[in-house]
């Protein structure tokens, strides 16, 4: 009961918060009365038209596919490397400069090189995005792996936890806040880079659409596409990430 109540209250607050954002936007649009800031209604109208007669859904689908693939690859590879570097100071000293170089490589350069080397295709696009995101995951997870509780580590060694048991029951819960931070900021980063990569060399996707409309300076369409994809990301956040997180945090609430 209490829990159900809390949930629906939360949903209501969330909806109210989104509504407030819309109202703010509308107010700004009215105040500005400029073509550079269309009202929510105009954007909604564009979205409806584009969804019915245009490529909105196809473009979102294409982008989403790239985002998901790059995200999964980047999280898996980045977590493995990050934990490895966090636990082995020697490996860290050896590979830290490589990591920093990749982390600070401009997305544009990485994307262009990928396109040149792997061809103007889907594989190059996903690789470019993953390469941009991996070092990011690594540096976050490395901090997590460095701040593990040594007491629990000793306990697991004494009781000879298998690597799988250790990873799942000792490591993962301690990394959870870092994983959450990496996933959340990572999802956003991935989709921002997908936009860039699409702009440089893909024939579809939200990034492609935004760049086309941007060339025509159709701000309504640009905002429309941005908002549409942001809505998708909000849905992922509230329907996937947050429930997962809530499960991982149950023990904190129980003991609170």
């Amino acid at each position, binding site marked *: 009961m209490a829990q159900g109540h809390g949930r629906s209250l939360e949903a209501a607050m969330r909806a109210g918060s989104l509504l407030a954002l819309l109202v703010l936007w509308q107010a700004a649009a009215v105040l500005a009365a400029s073509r550079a800031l269309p009202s929510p209604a105009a954007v909604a109208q564009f979205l409806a038209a584009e969804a019915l007669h245009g490529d909105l859904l196809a473009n979102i689908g294409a982008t989403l596919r790239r985002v998901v693939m790059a995200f999964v690859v980047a999280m898996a590879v980045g977590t493995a490397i990050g934990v490895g570097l966090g636990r082995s100071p020697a490996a860290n000293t050896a590979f830290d400069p490589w990591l920093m170089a990749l982390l600070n490589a401009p997305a544009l350069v990485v994307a262009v090189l990928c396109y040149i080397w792997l061809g103007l295709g889907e594989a190059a696009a996903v690789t470019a995005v993953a390469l941009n995101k991996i070092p990011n995951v690594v540096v976050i997870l490395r901090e997590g792996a460095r701040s593990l509780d040594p007491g629990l580590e000793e306990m697991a060694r*004494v009781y000879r936890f298998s690597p799988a048991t250790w990873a799942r029951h000792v490591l993962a819960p301690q990394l959870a806040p870092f994983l959450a931070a990496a996933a959340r900021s990572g999802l956003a980063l991935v989709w921002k880079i997908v936009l860039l990569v699409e702009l440089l060399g893909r024939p579809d996707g939200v990034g492609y659409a935004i760049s086309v409309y941007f060339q025509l300076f159709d701000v309504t369409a640009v905002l429309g596409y941005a908002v549409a994809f942001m809505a998708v990301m909000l849905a992922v956040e509230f329907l996937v990430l947050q429930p997962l997180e809530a499960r991982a945090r149950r023990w904190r609430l129980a003991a609170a």
Partner: protein
Amino acid sequence: MPRLEIDISAKTYRRPDGTAVEAVRGLRVVLAPGEFVCLIGPSGCGKTTTLRILLGLDRAYEGRVVPDPATLRIGMVFQEPRLLPWRSVEENIRLCMPRQHRARPLDELFAAFGLAEWRGRYPGELSLGLARRVSLVRAIVNGPDLLVLDEPFVSLDDRAAAELRQAVMAAVARHRMTVVMVTHNLREAIELADRLVFLAPRPTRVIEEVALAAARPERGPAWIEAQRAMLAARGATA
């Protein structure tokens, strides 16, 4: 379980900045199979340090432990409970069991340690005394070769402590475990141990060993008190 030999000629903690703390210097203890030995020594003398070496958790020392602790099945009660806060009491225990035994019923054990109603709770919901019981159950549940206890019966009222001692001793007897226990409670040590090993202040070493021959059932309160008085008079605890 073979004969266990702990021989630490020196253990020094060194900081990166060079300062050092010498914790152990020339400590040697040999345990016969199935023997119950109590380590008794002043606060901060190096007891936990010795146990960590015995467990194979610290390899940066001079000396040796034979057989290699990595080859032994060990149960350990750390000085703090060290439970996984994100797993329930029951999961904390089952995760320490070999996979093929994980599904074993544990009702009796939980009942014997007063944890029946806490099985599904998280460690954060336990009082410290309850958490200690979980860590005790975890240590004996697999019937290990070697049981290592670092002040296991503190934060417990006398009656609970007595019950838990009995439950642990039953498991020790059943599996013929070799036991090393650290305690500051001399009465407890006299009640349980086959041999008392008195340690010097830091850097620690053995200053005296006292064998207790009486069979455990014969150790009543009066006998324990007498032994204690005798040891105190001899100044062994000093």
